[in-house]
Structures are given as structure tokens and as C-alpha cells.
């Protein structure tokens, strides 16, 4: 039987997390189908049909799926579950929200945030904020999996799958979307950016984040933050990188005024290159940084900006 990947999207764009989840699903060895549940999401289905390794795209296009409300997603996925051995979703806040409901209704355990497929029934996943890696084997039967997307390389856009409409599964009426306050930014998203510059408590205020913005603009980087900076109210919650925020693995992660608490490291230590700027020579962040600069960030960051300008960035 086939594997079903639940697409992550915003009704206009297919998110990179989907391509990475497809990559994980491909490793299970069975044909891969993608479910696009959304509203007016034809373009998303089109994009999903081009992902390498995808055999079929199912589209449930209905107003009740506009925001992927967990209760309605549960009903839709359950209506299709009979045809699949494995159902996978990216471990985004959406995937984490609806997938355990599906698992519970199917009476199977969920395997959360897999980092690697060891074999079609065996997976690696982080526990204790990534301080240990657990290898788990699923019992025969359906597998419900969420995928930590930093563990997989996105499936490329070389495919041409057929697109098929599926019926909506109805609204439960017990939960209602009221509104959304999304951070608006011209910059790349944290989870798909190639370069991230993050600030911590050392930034001292939200206003000071404009120092990072200037570097981010030059490097086409995303701006992130540590939990301390979010808790202090410097920046909104969606900036948070760490165990309970976003897990990222960019080509370059620049940590500025971040001490390197375990829970922050859990969210960024798989970055290819880590650079750290901190005035405390003993800060734990230097134990994981490829390049460390012990300096006052309020002097060092403007200097970095100047140097980038000089080099033509």
C-alpha cells in the first residue's frame, strides 16, 4: 500500500516542509501520494504534483480546510486512511496539531518528529531536547509519523503526478477559526532560510534587533531569537528558535548575544556553520560555534555590517 503525505501550505504556496516530508516518505519504499487540504488551493496541488517521487495528489478544496483546523483535518484524513500504510505530516504547528488526533482514532501510536528513516518500520527521533536520539520500531499496522524537516533534503521538482479531487469530510462545528495575526516580513521564513541571524537577551531591547535586520537584509537572511529574547518581549513568539520553538538547520547560523542554553542549542545545532558573537568568553554557545567572536555586539555588529558593505553585499 501507499504512503500519504499531508501537505503544508497557506493556500497559495506549497511549503518547503512538504517537499522534505515527501523525501522522508519516499524512503519508506511505497508509492507516495500527497493530500492538499485547503481552500482555493489549485496552485498548491499543481506544485505538489511536480515533486519528485509523488505518484498522485489528492485535493480537498473546501472553505472548511482554509486554516487546517485540527478537528476537520482529523475527519478528512480518517476518510482516506483506509488506503494507506503510512501517513506522514511535517512537524509544523499544523502537523503537530492534527496528526495525534488521527493516530488516536486509528488506535495506533504516533512516531513524532523523525530525523531519519532507518528502515521502513524503524526511525530515529530526538528525545530530551535532542540530548538523546531514540531508535524506535513500529509494530505492524498503520504508521502515523511527523517529520522533523531539518533531517531530510527536499524532494526536487521533477515529477508530474496526476491530480485527483476528493470529497470534503464535513465540519464538526465544535471548533471555529476566529482570526490570525501573522508576522509580516519580506525576509525568508526561518525554517527554510539558508542564513539565519538570531538575537538573545544580550540584544537588551526589541529596538536593537534593527542591528540584526541590517545584516539580514544584506545576506538575505531570516531573523530569529532565543527564548530569553521572546520572553523579554523583544520580538514575537514566531521568532523563537529552540526545543519548543522552531528547529532550524541553515547553511549559516549567526548567534548574537545568545548564551547557548540547552533548549536553544536543541533548535539550531544541526546548522552547517555556526558563528557566535558574545561578550562572555565562557558562554556555552562557543562550544558549538565554528567561529566565535568575543566582543560587545553593539560594536561588533555595526562593524560586520560595514565590512559587508565594503565587500559589496
Amino acid at each position: 500500500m501507499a504512503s500519504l503525505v499531508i501537505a503544508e501550505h497557506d493556500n497559495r504556496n506549497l511549503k518547503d516542509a512538504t517537499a522534505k516530508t515527501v523525501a522522508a516518505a519516499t524512503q519508506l519504499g511505497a508509492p507516495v501520494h500527497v493530500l492538499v487540504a485547503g481552500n482555493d488551493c489549485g496552485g498548491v496541488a499543481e506544485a505538489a504534483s511536480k515533486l519528485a517521487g509523488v505518484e498522485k495528489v489528492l485535493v480537498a478544496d473546501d472553505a472548511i480546510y482554509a486554516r487546517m483546523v485540527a478537528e476537520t483535518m482529523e475527519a478528512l484524513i480518517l476518510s482516506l486512511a483506509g488506503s494507506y500504510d503510512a501517513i506522514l505530516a511535517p512537524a509544523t504547528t499544523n502537523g503537530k496539531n492534527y496528526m495525534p488526533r488521527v493516530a488516536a482514532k486509528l488506535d495506533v501510536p504516533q512516531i513524532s518528529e523523525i530525523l531519519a528513516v532507518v528502515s521502513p518500520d524503524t526511525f530515529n527521533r530526538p528525545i530530551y531536547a535532542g540530548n538523546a536520539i531514540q531508535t524506535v520500531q513500529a509494530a505492524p499496522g498503520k504508521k502515523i509519523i511527523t517529520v522533523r524537516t531539518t533531517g531530510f533534503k527536499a524532494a526536487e521538482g521533477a515529477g508530474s503526478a496526476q491530480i485527483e479531487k476528493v470529497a470534503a469530510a464535513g465540519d464538526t462545528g465544535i471548533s471555529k477559526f476566529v482570526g490570525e495575526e501573522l508576522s509580516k516580513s519580506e525576509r525568508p521564513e526561518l525554517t527554510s532560510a539558508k542564513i539565519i541571524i538570531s538575537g538573545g537577551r544580550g540584544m537588551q531591547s526589541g529596538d536593537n534587533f534593527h542591528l540584526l535586520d541590517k545584516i539580514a537584509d544584506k545576506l538575505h537572511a531570516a531573523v530569529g531569537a532565543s527564548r530569553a529574547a521572546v520572553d523579554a518581549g523583544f520580538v514575537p513568539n514566531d521568532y523563537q528558535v529552540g526545543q519548543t520553538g522552531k528547529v532550524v538547520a541553515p547553511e549559516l547560523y549567526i548567534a548574537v548575544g545568545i548564551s547557548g542554553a540547552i533548549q536553544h542549542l536543541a533548535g539550531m545545532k544541526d546548522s552547517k556553520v555556526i558563528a557566535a558573537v558574545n561578550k562572555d568568553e565562557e558562554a556555552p554557545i562557543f562550544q558549538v560555534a565554528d567561529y566565535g567572536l568575543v566582543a560587545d555586539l553593539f560594536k561588533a555588529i555595526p562593524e560586520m555590517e560595514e565590512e559587508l558593505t565594503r565587500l559589496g553585499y
Partner: protein
Amino acid sequence: MKVIVPVKRVIDYNDKVRVKADQVGVDLANVKMSMNPFDEIGVEEAVRLREKGKATEVIAVSIGPQQAQETIRTALAMGADRGILVKVDGDVEPLAVAKILKAICEAEQPGLVILGKQAIDDDSNQTGQMLAALLGWPQATFAHTLEMGDGSAKVEREIDGGLQTVEIKLPAIVTTDLRLNEPRYASLPNIMKAKKKPIDEKSPADYGVDVAPRLKVLKVAEPPKRQAGVKVKTAAELIDKLKNEAGVI
């Protein structure tokens, strides 16, 4: 309205987690055990609801070894009214926990169950959602703010792009995110008072739930270690290394 708050006993978030040499798990000897921090936020929110007159009783439930009673006592010292300890030795998977909680909900008929969004040991992030599905109740996960209405609750949720507001009909499940509140410290008089509050002891069999694990843990290993790199002296040197040595900008 009753509020149920499940609480889990886990290695304290400040303690270092060590993988056992035989790779069967992590070392639980000689570490400090505490209440899962997200559950503490749940207890605080429930107690505040009772203090505001929105809830009548707060029941703390823990599923775990005999020592999980201490975790329940912590919740009672924070202001919960009574406890239920479902005694199990060994790991219990989220699905089994959800099944036990479902049975407790059917007996107690709460208006709200507030759980931590995840436990910081297995990082599963499943139990609340599973419980909601088993009961057929709505859920608001990753709660940032909670506002009780008449027969419903309005919850602001932390999502990848920012904040989302949902309205859920009661009874319902809420799971906490970091910024829902700042849990109080229990005062000494309240710690003393908590010792007199009742805790019921139960077993999974009382609820007809099989807690045998369904997933087989083959191995628990240390993650690959990152080596510390070099220290540079100036901002210009840092840019130079990133450009010419690492080739990432």
C-alpha cells in the same frame, strides 16, 4: 466547572541528561525529578480560573510510579484541590495516557482539561490531541492566552507564522505553550496544606486500559557531538572566514 490538569514527573529541566552506556535509555538515577514545566503552566492556569470563579474544582492527575505522588503534591501546593495517581512503573506511551485520561474524564465530567503541550522527556507532543480525539472534543493546542466565555473558550495559539485565535465549545482540551502564564511558587503554608489534600490511588486496570508499549525502543544514543571551532579577533575577520573559508556568504 471542574478542570483536570494532568501532570508528569520528568527529569528537571536544569539537570543534565545522560545516555546510559548500554544504550537502553537515559540515566534516571541521581537526577532531580520535577513537574514537567508545561504542566506547571497548566496547573497555574487552572488555579487562576478557580480563583476568578470560572472553575469550581481543580483535579491534578498523574500517571506514573509511586513517586509521581510528589508531583501531584506540588500541584496541590500550587492550589489544586485533589489528586488522582494512576500507578504504573515503566514508560507509558501517550496513547495509553490519553485512554486513561479519557476514562477519568468520563467519570469526573470536567469542562476543561489543561495539559502541557509536550513533556520535556519524550518530546512527543501528542497526549492532549489524542485525548481530544478519543473524547470527540475540540482542542486548542499551544495556548498563548485563554479566555473563558459562556459554554465556550477563546484561545490564542502560538503557530509557526505568529498567533491564531480559535473558539472552542466546552468541554474542551487546551494545551499550554510557554507564555500562557508564569507559574507561582508554592508558599510554605500551602505546601503544608497540600499534605492534607486527598489523593486517590488507582491502577490502569481500574480504567480497563492496557499500557503495554506499542513501539519498541531499539536504542537510545548520544547525538553526534559538535566540535568547538576557532575564535576570531575582529568582526572583519569573522566576515572573511564566513566568506572565504566556510563559503557560506
